[in-house]
């Protein structure tokens, strides 16, 4: 069977090469949880990459990275996604940034759609804080996909919005209100 179009674009994560052993660092969430991650996975975040580069430039030992605006549960999800994509070429995610049509690989689709909507929003927000382009693209596309074909009521339920929108009586716009 011919390989899928997307698989050619986005290399599948592979096991670390023996010549380049994984460099593991500790990452601390805003609520004090300490997790471990490969530096290559953390480099997908432009924010963390800049911090790591700062340590490297000054030859300071990097023992622990503090992520002050992401809670432990969400940070774990972020690190899981980054670990899966640590072998990816960052240029691919950048190229997808402004595309009107992107394809979500099956692993990412499964990973993102199994999350409750609230967790998905937290993950997208964390992706923005940490500037992880690929995760932003796939997360937002997943939210858009989940909204497709839904009525206002269904969206309200899906996104957990309790208050109904009240029509302004003065407005003349019809289908928009």
């Amino acid at each position, binding site marked *: 069977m011919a390989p899928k*179009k997307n698989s050619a674009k986005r290399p599948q994560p592979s096991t670390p090469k023996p010549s380049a052993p994984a460099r593991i660092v500790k990452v601390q969430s805003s609520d004090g949880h300490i997790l471990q991650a490969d530096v290559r996975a953390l480099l997908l975040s432009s924010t963390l990459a800049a911090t790591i580069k700062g340590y490297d430039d000054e030859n300071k030992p990097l023992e622990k990275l503090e992520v002050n605006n992401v809670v432990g549960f969400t940070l774990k999800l972020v690190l899981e996604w980054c670990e899966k994509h640590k072998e990816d070429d960052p240029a691919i995610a950048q190229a997808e940034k402004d595309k*009107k*049509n*992107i*394809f979500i690989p099956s692993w990412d689709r499964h990973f993102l759609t199994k999350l409750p*909507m*609230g*967790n998905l*929003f*937290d993950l*997208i*927000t964390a992706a*923005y804080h940490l500037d992880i382009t690929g995760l*932003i*693209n796939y*997360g*937002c*596309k997943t*939210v*858009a*996909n989940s*909204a*497709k*074909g*839904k*009525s*206002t009521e269904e*969206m*309200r339920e899906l*996104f*957990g*919005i*309790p*208050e109904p*929108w009240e029509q302004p009586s003065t407005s*003349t*716009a*019809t*289908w*928009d*209100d």
Partner: protein
Amino acid sequence: MDLKACLEHLPEPAKRNVLMWCPYSSVIALGKTCTAWREFIHIPNQNLPIKRIMVKFGENCSRLQVGSSFASGKNQNSNLLSVQYQLVGGGCAVIYENSLSRGQKKLESEDYQDLFKEDLKILRKLLGNSILEYFEVDCETFQCSMQRRNLKNQFESFLKTITDIWAYSIFMLYRRMRVNLKARLRRAILNKKTPMEIEKILSRWEFHENLKFYRKTLEKWEKSLRNGGSDTSEDGENLEDEDGTEEMDFSCETVENQGIVASEAEDSLRGLLELRKK
């Protein structure tokens, strides 16, 4: 977890990202869910994926169709929202439908033309800087109607509304068509094609019929080019330079330009409409 807070507190670029991938009917539905999303959607220049707009005029009614495209998996799908505004008694009825649902709303003491105009304005605002690929004005009923004169007046009022709202977009499309026509003519003349051959070549171009009225203004330029003259525009325009200069100010905000833009766009539309009347 407070889901409402999560939704409302998504970073603005994330919200824009989500909207970019939603079909138009989903955007409208999302805008109705809560005040925060509604306000966000109404920020100008959201660049929503609206691809085509079709307007149809009839007796005491008009129809607006909005087409958007969105990606689903590997496929590119389209979504069509149709809204009909109809005169009913002292008010009007608005019937809206897409592939999933259909609804009707009766509005007492409302003018259906005003509602149509308001919705067009909203649409223009939501389209932002996106490029509209297709704009069609269908006046088939207008041609067949017994009340032609009344409808003509009505139609002219609509035409003014459309050009007032869409002038810039139509003008850009019209300008590109003119640039294209000149390029085709130039290529044909420089390749020593006879006038008959040129006509044959141009007749295969789908937009040529719509630009015949403009072509008349190019007669001197064509003649000069045939006689080996320079390629400067005899009609006082240098379209190639305009088209390549993105920063050129054709903004509708300039009062002086607005008249020109609207007038040219109207001419362009009139050309299209005259063609349909034949």
